[in-house]
């Protein structure tokens, strides 16, 4: 992935590859698709192909992006605006950025591209049993996982976007984020040609979480790899991630998937969507639900099963965000939102449990000598 942050020049120039997909659904992507759909979307595709359910969606590919820029006919104009800019001159940078972003956000898309996105959005809505499904529109940069690679664009994310016009508008806003003042300055400083940078935009169903949280495929306190630990609260996961509530906590046996420990906490706050303001808002959990388990046992088991699959796929302990969607029917409503490698225990050098004794007899003797602590 390290070399993939630049798009192959030949595909971006005037002669665009007309056969490459401009829009593609996540399930058509995998870890080799970074150049096409960026890191975020390709990892979602990777999860789907590993058998993990993620909220469905599609990407405007880097080809789609190149097509847009080409059709808009603004490449030369942008080049002119940026020519000779000093990366230290923030005022000038800001001005150029504003002009360019306005340009990008106001130019029409080609009818073909617009149709492709609209068709994909319609398909997505049908899949979600909704006339117009609320989605998250976010940039999926081709280099976002590289250290210091923020030049690719601000990680813009627009939530609760509904209806094709709004979707289209926010796709443009994501594209224009390639031209923030900071991004431009960075590229100038590093000597990257602006015209060679590319972006993909992901359009993904908003998980309208009834319940959400995080889970780890290693016990955060003991480093035990044989368990999966799940934190959950009603509403969106942000109440859990931010530590604003003490979530319900479950310890699941990774080998057998049964729940071996559960702690139900008093949960006073949760987050839900306000469709009008397109924001999540905090609300008080009704008193009669505060002490109720925020997730069903069957859902815990399914989450743990997914966690196990994800860990196996990546071959290392993982830290996973998940949600259970209230708009989708049972059996298709449990989603993984994000999965990243667990870092604390994975980087720790664990001492071996063996006393260095090789035979059972040696171990028994050495253990007898140590004895068992009275607990």
């Amino acid at each position, binding site marked *: 992935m390290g070399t993939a942050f630049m798009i192959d020049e030949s595909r971006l120039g005037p002669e665009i590859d007309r056969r490459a997909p401009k829009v593609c659904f996540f399930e058509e992507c995998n870890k080799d698709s970074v150049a096409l759909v960026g890191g975020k979307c390709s990892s979602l595709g990777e999860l789907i192909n590993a058998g993990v359910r993620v909220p469905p969606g599609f990407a405007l590919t880097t080809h789609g992006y190149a097509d847009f820029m080409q059709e808009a006919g603004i490449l030369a104009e942008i080049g002119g605006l940026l020519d000779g800019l000093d990366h230290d001159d923030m005022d000038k940078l800001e001005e150029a950025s504003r002009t360019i972003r306005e340009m990008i956000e106001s130019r029409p898309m080609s009818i073909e591209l617009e149709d492709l996105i609209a068709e994909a959005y319609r398909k997505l809505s049908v899949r979600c049993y909704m006339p117009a499904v609320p989605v998250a529109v976010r940039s999926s940069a081709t280099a976002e996982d590289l250290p210091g690679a923020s030049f690719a664009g601000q990680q813009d994310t627009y939530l609760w976007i509904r209806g094709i016009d709004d979707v289209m508008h926010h796709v443009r806003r994501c594209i224009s984020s390639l031209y923030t003042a900071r991004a431009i300055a960075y590229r100038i400083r590093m000597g990257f040609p602006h015209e060679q940078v590319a972006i993909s935009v992901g359009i993904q169903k908003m998980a309208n979480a009834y319940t959400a949280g995080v889970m780890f495929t290693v*016990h955060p306190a*003991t*480093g*035990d*790899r*044989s*368990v999966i630990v799940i934190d959950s609260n009603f509403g969106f996961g942000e109440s859990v991630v931010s530590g604003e509530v003490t979530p319900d906590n479950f*310890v699941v*046996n*990774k*080998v*057998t998937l*049964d*729940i*071996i*420990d*559960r702690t139900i906490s008093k949960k006073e706050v949760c987050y839900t969507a306000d469709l009008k303001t397109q924001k999540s808002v905090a609300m008080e959990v009704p008193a009669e639900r505060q002490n109720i388990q925020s997730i069903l*046992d069957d859902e815990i088991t399914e989450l743990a099963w997914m966690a196990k699959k994800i860990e196996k796929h990546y071959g290392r302990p993982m830290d996973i965000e998940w949600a259970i969607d209230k708009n989708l029917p049972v059996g298709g409503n449990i989603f993984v939102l994000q999965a990243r490698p667990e870092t604390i225990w994975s980087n720790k050098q*664990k001492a*071996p*449990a*063996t006393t*260095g*004794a*090789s*035979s*059972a*007899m040696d*171990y*028994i*003797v050495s*253990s*007898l*000598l*140590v*004895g*068992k*602590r*009275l*607990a």
Partner: protein
Amino acid sequence: MKFPVPHDIKGKTIPGTEGWERMYPYQYQFVTDDPKRNQYEKETFWFYDGLHYPEPLYPFDTIWDEAWYLALSQFNNRIFQVPPVRGVDHRIINGYVYISPVPVKDPEEIGKRVPNFMERAGYYYKNWDALEAKWKLKMEATIAELEALEIPRLPDVEDLSVVTDGIGESKGYHLLKNYDDLINLGIKCWQYHFEFLNLGYAAYVFFMDFTQKLFPNIPMQRVTQMISGIDVIMYRPDDELKELAKKAVKLEVDDIVAGHREWEDVKAALANRRHGDEWLAAFEKARYPWFNISSGTGWFHNDRSWNDNLNIPLDGIQTYIGKIREGVSIDRPMEAVRAERDRITAEYRDLIDNDDDRKQFDELLGCAKTVFPYVENHLFYVEHWFHSVFWNKMREVAAIMQEHGVIKEIEDVWYLRRDEIKQALWDIVTAWATGVTPRGTATWPAEIEWRKGVMQKFREWSPPPAIGIAPEVIQEPFTIVLWGVTNSSLSAWSDVQGVADPDSITELKGFAASPGLVEGKARVCRSAEDIRDLQEGEILVAPTTSPSWAPAFAKIKACVTDVGGVMSHAAIVCREYGMPAVVGTGLSTRVIKTGMTLRVDGSSGVISIVQ
């Protein structure tokens, strides 16, 4: 942890029991008149062995405690030389047994014992199977001797053959001698009991210990599951019942076998039925030795065997006939158990971080699997088969004592120590020989009446779980196992005991012994006989269960016990049947009432009383 001083506890004699000490051997007493011993007792940590002794000990039943006091200690200390520990010391307060491992304090001495232990215990681990085969022969010979042992009644006139064969010995002498033989056989049997047991426990304990080091959150039930699916004869009696059920159906006598609650009625009805004899013959054949299975732990005289009460195995057979008629398989799902064992073991093994640990895991698992059959099977030979026969031989002795007026009822004999019985037999035999009245006819009945009152007061007293000063570590395998069970139950017990009104308790905790979550009606069964009332789909709540309860598990959907760990019978059987179990809950049979609706979570070990 802070516990009371033993002598303070003992000092508070329960009114009306003054002098109770004479019911037990003198070396079991906490003393105040011997400063050195008193000091040792004060500085030592004693814990109540509630796993083995849920009730105060009858004076005679102290025999097995003395037997294992000797056997375990000698094997640890004089035979195998477990490096850091000698034997396990015993005391009794108000009929309850307290035990304490005796550590070797001098590091140099510990060091000296290591090579001995390596050589000796190592020899047993290495030659385990061959030595175990030899053990079986020794045990079977001992039991055969016991079964053949005659407890002669005292005739008015000796048989003529005593004269014509020139025997030169009387039945009186035989009675004395055979009583000694009976006791000695019992002690010998317990010598064998501990020949392998502590080594077995050590292999277990440290396999579990190692696995928990690797996986701090691993449920113990999963560790034990890795050693499951090995055939052991403890299940044989239950298998015999299943075979008899199948045979009854095949011979078309199942309507009769399932048609009466009393064995005598079944037997009588079978006599007039085609193939009835054939089935009865099969039944008789199964009884020896397999119905020598105690309905309790076998540790106490009041644990009766299936052979003593044939209604219990009959009820089991009837349960299985019912299942066969419904078309339900009654065979143990051994293939599935083994497949799941192998899957679980492989997955945990894969989660081990490094090769050294994986190798150690393999070694310890292999060792635990080797010792497993003995750790299970010795129970059938000793606690069930030998004990069941032994208690009844003792009843023959008691019948003679009753006949000569020294005790009023046969069951009174248990209120005497075994050396007191020997004295009483001398009294009887010399009086019989001489033609006078035994002195004991005037003394023992009154003493026994008094002891009955004392025992009742003991039962009403609750023994503190531990006394004395707790050490930081314990190093004696048997004690580790026992203490593991005792200690983990302690907090659960104290939680429940702290509640003034038991009716207000809505939740109990114990060991998560077999996973799963079910809701259902409770049926409290205090003895194996009560399981006859069990209805299909109920949740069994019992003080503990033993293999003789096996048929009950075909009816229930979950099991809850007061006493026991994840290796207890209820835990193992529930895992095989794939139903939830919570064991070692302390007071379930007291808190839960038949008919209550319970939710049993065998994965987290919580029982909720729903209504």
